[in-house]
């Protein structure tokens, strides 16, 4: 149990709370970049996904962009942006990278959520006289919420994992113990940092799973349980 126990010893050592690279500070920086990036990406991708899902147009473009964006190597993109934007704009360069990373999952979550709704439900809504906006706000959005939350969950996990590279360009975050530990050959530090990132990802995943479950409209959940007599089947995962 050499390396693992050493890593735990490193993690729980009181020195981890001192200095500019204290674990709480690193965690704060990590969460800051994650949340800001996912929020900005959501502001861009979710309305776009909703428009695509509601109007039914532009789906091919969305799929193509999502696919291409996923193929971009985040580390390379971040370094490129740092070189282009200059050393005084490193946080902006990193955030742009993480936003580009988060957009595909959020876009997919938004439009598949709306696409998965039974067309008869939309027809029924129109039949009772709802306008386009009312159909969207009162019918499509609530019904599409579970898949959207699934998309947010996927994006959040990807970004949490990738923000570790922010340490390479001096932005801190939980990647710092890893980036510093390798040249110093302090592998307890490297493993400790990796464990922290993994833990953060697991906790975030758990919370988002609960959120996804809670996002199913009560009426649907009750209806499903009554009809199937078992687990609700409404919450499909939107890891497109």
């Amino acid at each position: 149990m050499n390396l693992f126990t050493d890593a735990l010893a490193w993690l729980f050592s009181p020195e981890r709370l001192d200095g500019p690279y204290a674990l709480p500070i690193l965690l704060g920086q990590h969460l800051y970049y994650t949340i800001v990036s996912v929020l900005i990406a959501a502001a861009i991708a979710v309305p776009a996904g909703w428009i695509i899902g509601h109007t039914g147009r532009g789906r091919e473009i969305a799929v193509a962009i999502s696919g291409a964006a996923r193929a971009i190597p985040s580390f390379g993109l971040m370094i490129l942006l740092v070189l282009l934007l200059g050393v005084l704009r490193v946080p902006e360069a990193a955030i742009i990278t993480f936003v580009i990373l988060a957009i595909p999952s959020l876009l997919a979550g938004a439009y598949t959520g709306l696409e998965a709704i039974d067309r008869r439900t939309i027809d029924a809504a129109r039949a009772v006289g709802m306008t386009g906006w009312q159909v969207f706000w009162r019918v499509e959005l609530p019904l599409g919420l579970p898949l959207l939350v699934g998309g947010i969950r996927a994006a959040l996990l990807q970004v949490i994992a990738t923000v570790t590279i922010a340490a390479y360009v001096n932005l801190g975050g939980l990647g710092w113990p890893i980036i510093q530990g390798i040249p110093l050959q302090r592998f307890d530090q490297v493993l400790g940092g990796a464990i922290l990132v993994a833990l953060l990802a697991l906790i975030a995943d758990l919370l988002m799973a609960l959120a996804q479950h809670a996002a199913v409209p009560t009426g649907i959940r009750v209806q499903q349980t009554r009809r199937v007599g078992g687990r609700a089947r409404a919450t499909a995962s939107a890891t497109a």
Partner: protein
Amino acid sequence: MFTARKSRIALVGAAALAASLVLAGCSNSNPLEEEPAGEGSGEGGDTIVVGSQAYYSNEIVAEIYAQALEAEGFTVEKKFNIGQRDAYIPELESGAVDLFPEYTGNLLEFYDPEATATSPEDVYAALQEALPEELTALDYAEASDQDTYTVTKEFAEANGLTTIADLAKVTTPVTLGGAPELEQRPYGPAGAKEVYGVDLQFSATGETTLESLLAGEIQVADIYTAAPAFQTEEIVALEDPENLILASNVVPIASSDVADEIADVINAVSAELGADDLVALGVQSTEDQMSPDDIATQWLEDAGLI
């Protein structure tokens, strides 16, 4: 809610997790260490394999060694741009690579993190002791690629700085920038405080250290002595009279079984590799865009070795 199938899956999952944790602990403390790749020396007795780091300055020196050996009739195989120490040291130790240009101080730090030597001679002596049996250090050159505390000429003039100790005179907060590991090194901020009484903040600028210094984001930068920037930019290294910083001269590391054969050729090269040479070679690479091949040939001709 807990069916028999779910309980079984949970049990298997828990067992797998426990097994992976136990197995993770069975590994040795350096997960990046490779097992030696079979027996030592290569097939042909005369083929010398020369390696280099993924660093253009190091590649140029390796190219110089390779061409010097070829001029003396050796068959040389070049394996350049291998990577960082955790990538190429195993190859060196196993004999897959026979000759490698290294740096005395940084290599000593790698083999003996607790070493306290800092002057060029002490570091070289300590390195010879710290090296494993399979490796031999040939003569070291005057040329070095070591850490410095560098400031812009403007900052030095404005604050009257010549040595590292003078940094204590600066009234505004002073930030030191460099690779992430510098923060923990004995010649990092902690060492500067202890030896010179200077309070420095740290910023892990890494690859963008020079740009950050020139942009004013940091006031002191760890620029390596072989950097072309010393010739092309208005920067100056602060003097280190107390030998805080680890000296790191260019030293050829050879497999012990070929060391005697190649010692004469390579030591002649090291004797000619002077303090300013690496900067000049670096400028030829980055500014004049010459290939390592041409730079090496030109240097060897100028030095009268080929």
